[in-house]
């Protein structure tokens, strides 16, 4: 049943976020440390476990994949609520700092990508 997939996804998300919060408290940080990443690893482990036992039914998959398909619309909704006006009206310092940081990081993606290609 699809609800089992959605419930599994929800369980992994909640556990991951809780672990991220705990990690934040342990490190004395006022933020969630890698909660979503940990949740993703939990979901991967759960999929592997279910697949080994032949319990990865099409219904269960549907319950997870529906939410993966909704991802882009959710990102569009996220974009629509950004404070774009403030971002653009922050003055030259904001535009310069943001623009330079993004340009430099784009260049680093290309550089690191080339440097690490040989190690595959």
């Amino acid at each position: 049943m699809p609800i089992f997939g959605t419930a599994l996804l929800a369980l992994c998300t909640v556990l991951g976020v809780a672990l991220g919060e705990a990690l934040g408290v342990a490190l004395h940080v006022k933020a969630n440390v890698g909660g979503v990443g940990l949740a993703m690893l939990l979901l991967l482990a759960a999929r592997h476990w279910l697949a080994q036992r032949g319990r990865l039914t099409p219904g269960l998959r549907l319950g997870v994949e529906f939410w993966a398909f909704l991802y882009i619309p959710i990102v569009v909704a996220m974009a629509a609520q950004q404070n774009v006006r403030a971002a653009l009206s922050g003055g030259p310092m904001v535009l310069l700092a943001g623009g330079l940081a993004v340009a430099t990081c784009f260049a680093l993606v290309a550089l690191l990508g080339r440097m690490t290609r040989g190690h595959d």
Partner: protein
Amino acid sequence: MTDIWGKLVTDQALILAFVAVGAIMYAAVLLSRGLTRGRIHASAIAILGALVLAWLGGELTGGKKGLADVSGFGGLLLLGGAMLRDFAIVATAFEVDVGEARKAGWAGAIALALGTVVPFALGVGIAWCFGYRDAVSLTTLGAGTVTYIVGPVTGAALGASSPVIALSIATGVFKAVLVMTATPFVARFIGLNNPRSAMLFGGLMGTVSGVSGGLAATDERLVPYGALTATFHTGIGCLVCPSLLFLAVRALV
């Protein structure tokens, strides 16, 4: 008439948001096919269009939540909020190739470290050029260049002034908006077309909204790999900016 609309706005907010986002996506698909013959991804046009609408919403209402401040669009806050966004990102992991993710291991960690220190240093340098001289303001503005969450968290921890915190948030939001819009156009030139480079990209860019939006507009299949590293970025930034990096800045000024 206005009574019915008022009732819909309060009772059906999330449902109205589904309609609004569906309409934006549909318009984007038509534009992508009609104007660019599918060369520019419909998701890229939809995200860009949503940002323009967010700007318009801000201009119309003077609010801080873009289109969501306009009557009838409040449901966007729930649909596009952190809760459902994270839920959907985790769902994308279902299709992750574990072998591919493992390959990027060390490079991903290096990308995370560089993605924190390099934007921070640039932010501090530019703030210095604009006349800021005290370590607290410099660190807060540098932290805002990491992500728009690291900025205010650092500023609050160090006791920075409110205008400086606002500027650090603005820098982070601008960075996220820029990553969302520019990524599909530069992807070809920086080799962003495989899971490994997507993980490097996530670590270097950091901002989860920017990374997830930018990758969604470039190639949906890369989203989970970028999100996997980006999700550690804000936490690491909040860890080192008010501590290690603040001490470094204080030693320098």
